Structure formats: C-alpha cells, structure tokens
C-alpha cells in the first residue's frame, strides 16, 4: 500500500516534474555550459573556459556599476517597501466603514502593468511640467530632475516601487487577520497599550509573513528590469546610473548578442541571490514564528 502511494505521489507530480526539467532545469544547465563559451545566440559556441568570468571581474566596469546600482536599490527599496506595505496593512485592518473600498484603492496600483505605471511616472517626474516638481515648488522646496539626474534616478525608482506596495499589503492583511483576538484581549487585561500590543503581539505573530515578503522582495528587487528599461528608454541612463544587473544582462544578451557572457552574468546573480537568501534564513529564520511550530 505504502509503495503504491509513493508511486502515485510521483505520478501526480509528474506533469510538474516534466515541466521543471524541460523548461527550468534543462535551460539552466545549458546556460551554465554556455557561460563557458563565446556563444552569440547565432552560429556555433566555442569553449573559452573561465574567460567570461575573468573578464567580468577584472575588465568590465559596467558589471560593477550595475551590481552597485542593484544593491543600492535593494538596500533602500526592500526595507522601505516592507515598512510601507506593513503600515498600510495595519491601517487597513481597522474596523472602519468602506474598508473594502480603501483596500481596493491601495491594492489597485500593484495591478497596473509595470510598463504602464512607468510611463505614468515619467510624466509625474517630468521636471518642467510634472506634478512632483509642481508640488515641491508650491511648498517652496527644492525641485529635482528626477529620472534625468544621476543622483536622483535610483531614489526615483524606489519611490515608484513604493507605489506598488499594495501587493505585499494583501499578504500582510491575511497574516494580520489570522492573529487570534484572544491574545489582544489577554494583553489588554494585563494593561498593554496600543504600541505594546503592536510590538509584542502583532509583529511577532505575523513575522512569518514579513519574512516571506522580505525574501520575495529581495529576490524581486535583485531582478529589477522593466521600470528602469522604460524610464531610461532602454539605455540605463543617465550615465549608467539606472543600469541594473538584469538590465545589463539583457543588453549583453539581446543587444550585443553575447549570450555566453550574459549566461555568466546570470549565474553570478543566481549565486548572489542564493547567498543573500541563506543569510536571511540564518539571521532571521530562527526569530520567525510559524503556527504549526512544534
């Protein structure tokens, strides 16, 4: 009986397994092989050993530039996104009239396709007649060139990403609603105030959701591409300050047709994300609470 159950188990996940090996694992291994060649996407691939990796680390300033851009975006963007999303979720967890409407309003931006929202933000950030500068101007604050300024282009992209914080918010909301009310009641009896309840009950009880969003946010942030591609018209400007890692990878693969080189870039990114994720599990993993914990 047990044996046939095992057999059935594998049979049932077979469609997924087939898909995984054909569409994910296969191409991954192929790209690992390609990263040791000079494959151009057209024609034949010649084995060049570690040449691609050597060039990346020693000769390519754009590799380091794009890596730095991505790390900057991640370090500031992900925590900000977490906080904003979480705060929105806490506010929208209150018992107020028309809560559904508010939740919809804050969730909607994350449904807008990235290309469309990026085009929208280009207009908002337009230095001459955009609304961002108009508002700053009204309060007599210094204005900015936003997406056209070397210093501000990354912060601008982070602001854009916060607009989509509603996506994480929904997951937080689900987490918040699963916190048992009895805990709050017990804490109130013990004389805990609002802040204490939030800090000692809400946050720990939803730590698994926060952790989930942290990891997903980090992985997503390392792969930022579309927004930067649209706002810089595909060139990563000004002065490569919005050339993110995957963006540069894309340029190498589909603009310069250096598929081998791009494959090497992809594998380095894979390893970077893996390391970051492992670090997070080590640092935060133990502090996370799961309901089904032993």
């Amino acid at each position, binding site marked *: 009986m047990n044996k046939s159950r095992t057999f059935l188990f594998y049979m*049932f996940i077979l*469609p997924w397994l*087939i898909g995984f090996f054909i569409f994910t694992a296969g191409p991954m291994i192929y790209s690992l092989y390609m990263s040791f060649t000079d494959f151009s996407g057209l024609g034949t691939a010649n084995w060049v050993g570690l040449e691609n990796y050597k060039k990346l680390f020693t000769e390519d300033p754009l590799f380091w530039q794009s890596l730095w851009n991505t790390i900057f975006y991640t370090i500031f963007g992900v925590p900000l996104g977490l906080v904003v999303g979480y705060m929105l979720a806490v506010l929208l967890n209150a018992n107020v009239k028309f809560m559904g409407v508010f939740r919809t309003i804050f969730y909607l931006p994350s449904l807008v396709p990235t290309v469309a929202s990026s085009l929208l933000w280009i207009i908002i950030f337009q230095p001459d007649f955009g609304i961002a500068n108009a508002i700053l101007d009204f309060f007599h604050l210094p204005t900015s060139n936003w997406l056209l300024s070397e210093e501000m282009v990354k912060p601008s992209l982070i602001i854009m990403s916060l607009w989509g914080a509603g996506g994480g918010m929904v997951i937080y909301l689900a987490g918040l609603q699963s916190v048992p009310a009895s805990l709050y009641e017990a804490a109130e009896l013990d004389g805990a105030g609002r802040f204490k309840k939030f800090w000692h009950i809400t946050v720990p009880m939803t730590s698994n959701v926060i952790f989930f969003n942290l990891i997903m946010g980090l992985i997503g942030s390392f792969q930022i591409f579309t927004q930067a591609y649209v706002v810089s018209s595909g*060139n990563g400007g*000004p002065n*490569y300050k919005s050339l993110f890692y995957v963006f540069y990878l894309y340029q190498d693969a589909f603009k*310069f047709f250096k598929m081998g080189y791009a494959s090497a870039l992809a594998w380095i990114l894979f390893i970077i994300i893996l390391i970051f994720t492992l670090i997070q599990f080590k640092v935060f993993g133990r502090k996370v609470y799961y309901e089904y914990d032993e």
Partner: protein
Amino acid sequence: MGKKKGLGILVLSLILVLSAFMTGCSGSSSDSAGGGGSKDVTLRILVWNNNPEGTKLEGEIFKAFEKENPGIKVKQVYAPYDKFNDKFLTMSAGGDQPDLVWIQPAAFGQFVGKNVLMDLSDKKIDKDAYMPNVLELGQVKGKQYALIRDASTFQLGYNKDMFDAAGVPYPKDDWTWDDFLAAAKKLTKQKNGKTVQFGMENFYTNELLVENGGGFVSQDGNSVIVDSPESIEAIQFGSDLINKHHVQPTSAQSQGLSNMFLAGQAAMKMMGPWDWADTAKNAKFKWDVVPLPAGKAGNVSAAAYLPIGIGKGTKHPEEAFKLLTFLSSGKGQDMQIDTISAVPVVKRNSDKIETMKNAPENAKSLAASLANGKTVMNAPYIPEYAEIANKIQPVIDNINLKGGKDTEKQLKKIADQIRKEYNLK
C-alpha cells in the same frame, strides 16, 4: 479500486500534457507557413515607423507588388527604431526571421558579422539602373548584402512663420554654424522665466560631427576619432546649444514631448524627405527646408539611406528577391516619389526630387546636395560599430546633461577605453 482510479487520472494527465505539447508545436508551425492551406506565399518585411503618415502610405507600394505578383502576399512587421536591431537579431536567433529587413547603416556591419543576411552577389541585379555609388552602399568587403531603396540626407526644416515673426531672414543654402546660432537665439522666446519657444528642436550629434569633419570611428573602421579636435568641437557646440545658449531644450525640458516642431514649440528641426508627407499634412504653418549649416567641413550631412536585405533563413528566397528588386529598382522606385517622398536611387528618376509629392519650395537644395556629393558616409561597416556607438552615446548624453565643462577629458577617456577594448587605433 483506488489504484485503478489513480491510474485513470494518471493516463488522463499524461494525455493532457502531451496534447499541450502537440498543440504548441502545430500552432507555431502553421503560423510560420502563413498561407493556411492555400498556395499563397506570405513575405514578412521588418520595418520601423518614420511617422504615422509614412507608414500608412508605405502599404500602397506593397499592394501594388501584390497585384503584380499574384500568389505573393506582403506583411509588414513593425519594430520601433531604437529597438529595431535587437528585434531583428532576436527573431533571427529564435528561428523566426523575417524574409526581408530594413537596415540601419550603423548596424549593417553587425548584421553581416552575425551572418544573418543572405549574400546577394550571385543574384541577377540590374546594375545599370542605379545611380553611381548606390550599389556600393549595400556591399561589405565586396559582397552585396543589401540593395538600397532610398538615398538621401538630413536637412533642417524651419517654420517660416516664426522666422517672419522674429524678423529673421530665411536661412541660405550655404549658411554656417554662426548664422545658425544667431538665428536660433533670436527665435528662442521666454515667458515668466520659462522658454515657450525654442530655436532648435534637437540637433543630432551625428550630424554635428559630420559637418565638422568628426565622427565616432573613421570610415575605414580602423581608428577611433571621437576625441579628435573636430569631434570635440562639434560635441561641445551641441552641448552649448543646450546649456550655454539655451536655444535647444534640455532633456528635462523635452522629456515626454514629441515633435515640438509640429506643435509650434521649436522653430527648426532635423528633417529628411521621409518627413515631408507628415509635415505637409500636419503643420499649421508655412515651412521650408535648407541644407544643414556648415561647420569646418562645409555644408555636408550624413548620408541617410535605406539598405534592404534578405534574411538568411528565408524559406522563399526567390519571392523575397522579387520584392527587393521591385522596391529598389522596379516600380516601387516610381511609386515612392508620389507617396512617401522617398528619394529614388535609379537613374531614370534622378530629376524627380523637386517635384516629389509634398516637396517644399527649397527641395532643389536637397537635389543639389545629393548631386554634388555633399553627403558623407559615417557608419563604418565593421561588426563592432553598433556596440561602439552604444558605448559612446551615453557619454555624449552625459555631456549634454551636465553642461559639458570637461568635454575633452570625457571623450578622451571613452576613446581610449574603446581603443583598448576593440583593439583600434
């Protein structure tokens, strides 16, 4: 019992997976066959949009070809100008290559280097039909990889009403950078500290370089010349137009705006004959054209021509060549004069420029520039050129953005970097 049920589901799911694969495959193969049962051949030609009006009119030429060649259909596939080369190479790598392709001269060397174009050297080409030097534009190392459809150049289009209002005399065919700058200054108008009318929409760096005898890479493809004194002066002049004289909008001022010339926000604009139809239809003012102002190299401008190639992977080489012939030396050459105002490349139509449809008054200046060899080829046909240009452009963008205080230093730096990376002089 339970076991049987499990097996049934298993078989069912396997069938589902397999059928998904099968439909996937058959779907794509019927796509590429095109005709769907009938014997018709469908040729796909990859093109970009110059402007909405031109694209619409372009279709009439293909319709005429279809009428003349029953059984062959032509389908235009569009890609935006700045993503065009990526798209063609991606389609080629993905086994979905279009049968014919428009080519940007700057990418010609790259295409040939990647071996994605068909060698046309052995085909029957009516060599005597073409004007001098036209066939050569489609050759790389002596082999014919493309035929030219139109050969022209950029000029400056200007808004006559604005010149009248500002009391500036119309530009002459032999004007210089100084004349241009003086006119542009008078044509720039401010209101409440904001510029409401610019003298110039956007002076392309490439044209400034040509007018001053500079460039990115020398035409033989051997040396980097972007840091030559002529190039530095040209790039500095372009930056000064924006940052010192304020006669051309900064990228901040023009971000999100398209065609400020037609919108009446700029008095002058780079313009080729392919823009005439669109301008004639949409301009609400009187306009004319004039050759580009002269830098150190005189009133010259970059040769703007359209090579068309055949994809190496085409399944219909004969039909594709038939269409290419129709476009580059056949009836298409006669039709394009009256529809899209594209300058013909065949001898029999060499006198038609001034009478082309939508031709402005001074169209004869274009004819004169072309006849007198005032156009300069400045995109060497080496495989690395597209990549090199891609690396230099951001530096120039940055100079234009930052005001160009260290133009020379920046250009020297990128030039040396490229010399080292691509082993050039």
